[in-house]
């Protein structure tokens, strides 16, 4: 069985630099078969972790993007009314024959209701992401993205799925997961997630990475960027995060910036370079000014 270090290594191979906390969380989630709830500022690699894991572990990724108003018809399962109707139409003659045997109406109804389960069988069930990941033959990775965007009702709906890995369908009964998927929930913290859901998960907070890890992340993604520039860049970004910006530059911004710098073939960070590329790291007008000012202060 893989160890924590093993988790780190295979994530690294998948292009994701994990710190100890992340590796431990993944390791535990795999061993204990519990979901991980990841919180943290936008752009620190919450969804990225799920993607990296899915490629590294070779689990097919099943993604459920949450939004306001998502319900079980979109997340768990739905009935294919159209197909059900079509079948009843097509089978009409068959049904007539079948029912003509019965002498009176009561018997006909009984005969028909005995076959009811036919029309509420798995043939007519549309699998939505959660059910699909439960029924997948291979162990899958279920990513429930931005859970904070959904409503309270939806959260309550998830409780059964996440604690017991089963889905209750009134017409069919309880469907249990064939292989328990690795579940990852992400949240940007725009809304408080209920304690009931938190209790069922391992809680992982991913903040901004430390200097070395961020340099390593940039280096892994853009190996042709020289080490000095990457370091200089990250140091600058870390200072920018200390300013009170409306949208502090995150790891994803760091990667975008690294790409821009490597396209521009920059070798050193100067106030001019920053001024030209500031749109990549600052996303608000007031922030632009603050970041350019910082560049003039720091880089001269």
């Amino acid at each position, binding site marked *: 069985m893989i160890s*924590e270090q093993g988790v780190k290594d295979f994530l690294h191979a998948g292009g994701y630099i994990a710190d*100890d*906390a992340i590796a*431990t*969380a993944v*390791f*535990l989630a795999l*061993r*204990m078969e*519990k979901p991980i*709830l990841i*919180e943290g500022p936008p752009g620190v690699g919450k969804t990225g972790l799920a993607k990296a894991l899915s490629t590294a572990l070779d689990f097919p990724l099943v993604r459920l993007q949450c939004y306001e108003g998502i319900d079980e018809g979109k997340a768990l399962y739905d009935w294919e*009314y*159209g197909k059900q*109707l*079509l079948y009843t139409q097509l089978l009409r003659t068959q049904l007539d024959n079948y029912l003509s045997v019965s002498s009176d109406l009561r018997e006909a109804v009984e005969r028909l209701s005995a076959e009811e389960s036919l029309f509420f069988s798995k043939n007519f069930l549309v699998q939505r992401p959660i059910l699909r990941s439960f029924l997948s033959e291979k162990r899958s990775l279920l990513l429930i993205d931005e859970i904070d965007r959904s409503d309270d009702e939806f959260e309550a709906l998830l409780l059964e799925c996440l604690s017991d890995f089963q889905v209750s369908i009134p017409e069919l009964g309880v469907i249990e997961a064939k292989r328990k998927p690795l579940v990852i929930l992400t949240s940007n*913290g725009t809304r408080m997630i209920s*304690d009931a859901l*938190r*209790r069922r*998960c*391992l*809680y*992982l*907070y991913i903040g901004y990475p430390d200097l070395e890890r961020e340099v390593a992340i940039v280096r892994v993604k853009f190996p042709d960027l020289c080490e000095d520039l990457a370091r200089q860049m990250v140091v600058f970004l870390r200072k920018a995060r200390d300013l*009170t910006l*409306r949208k502090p530059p995150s790891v994803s911004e760091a990667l975008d910036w690294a790409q821009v710098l490597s396209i521009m073939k920059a070798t050193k960070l100067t106030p001019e370079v920053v001024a030209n590329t500031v749109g990549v790291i600052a996303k608000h007008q*007031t922030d632009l000014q603050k970041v350019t000012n910082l560049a003039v202060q720091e880089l001269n």
Partner: protein
Amino acid sequence: MERIIAGFVAALRESGIRVSPGESLDAVQALALCGMEGRRSSRQLLRLTLVKNVNDIPVFNEVFNRYFSRFHYVDPESDLPALMDADIIGMEGGEFTYLNQQQGDDHDDHGPLLKLDSDISPEDLAELKSLTEIDPDDMDGVEIVVQMKGYRGKAKKPPKPSRRYTQNPLVIELDKTGSVGCGVTFSPEEQAAMQDVVSRMMLRLRKDMKRMKSNQNRGKLHVIKTIQKNYRHDMVPFQVALRRKRREKPRLVVLCDVSFSVSHASRFMLLLLHTLHNQLLDVRSFIYNRDIAEITEMLANMPVNDLMETIDTGDIVDLDENSSFGQVFLKFKKQYLENLRGRPAFIILGDARNNYGDANDFVLDEIREKARYMLWLTPEDRDSWNRGDCLMDLYGSYCDRVEVVKTVDELSLFVEDLLRDIYADRADPLDRKKIIAARAAETYDSSDYYHRGSSAKSEPVFDPGGRSKW
């Protein structure tokens, strides 16, 4: 090991972190799976399994450090007998006991000591090794002590309820003497407190909001959408699409005095609205002193503290002037009154001290025609309303209500009340009755039952001009 974890969980609960038994089981399972290879990784394991909220992480770290700080490891094979002799290890069956509960406060100098029970095994001790912070000066210790600094025994201190679940009213004084005036920005705590007030308010309002929203969704049948939606069902209308009624947030217009005398109150008002904005309101905010300016955009786009600083510099409205309600109303009428849409509710915050200028109260009459509701909030007590240059009585006669507001709690209550009124206004007649009844039940105060109605002052007086007295 289970006992150590149980003790640690108890310590966490003492500090206000809610940990369920299920989570402590998870922690034990996790430790068993990973083993405890050092302090850092153990801490991570415990944090992953026991803490479910970012805000609790600092508290967790503190408790962890305290709980496992003076925990010295002894090689179980060689030193176990010596260990057993050590007087601080009490051998008692089955449970944790705290020494200082038995021996009073004798142990105050090194804190209460945790006794380990008799069925402790060498394996357990070995597992505990990793939790010890290795201190080179302290290596020769032969005691096993789990110390909890400052802990005075369970009997003396009832467990603190977790912060998120307290319902105590939160009181922030608005009229802080000495701090009134320029240069007021909000500390993170104040902002957090405000968030707290607002979220509690939202919780209380949620029912009303839901009712209103579901009402708004219940329109007439939308034929085209219904057909589109049921295309795959052979046009059999399984799913019905309804026309959405016009969905609108309640509109609110707020005028805040930022002059010296009431600045603190208006700042909190602004912060309150800033937090409320977008959630359930469509607010237009104005600030005034001698001049009036709209700050809706700025409120939405700037951090609150920046905005406060900008206001303090006097760039938006000049702060050095004396406030003049007459002029402000006139200017408001000229610039903004025409383009106010949809019968907003008005809140005016100010002391109505006009510095002996023209009252121009006819503008208020015009505003009243446009407004659904008018509320005047003043930080001054009723006694001083007619003293000096205060025009509260005159202005107040145009308003539906005039209230004295001194704390954030009062402020939020009035705003909540106003919102409820607006929701009740929108709701079906049936729902309206329910909302009003629910509120009456909530706010019914039986303490002054015998004295109510005895004072003639509170009687409404008929006014031929149609203005209400409060």
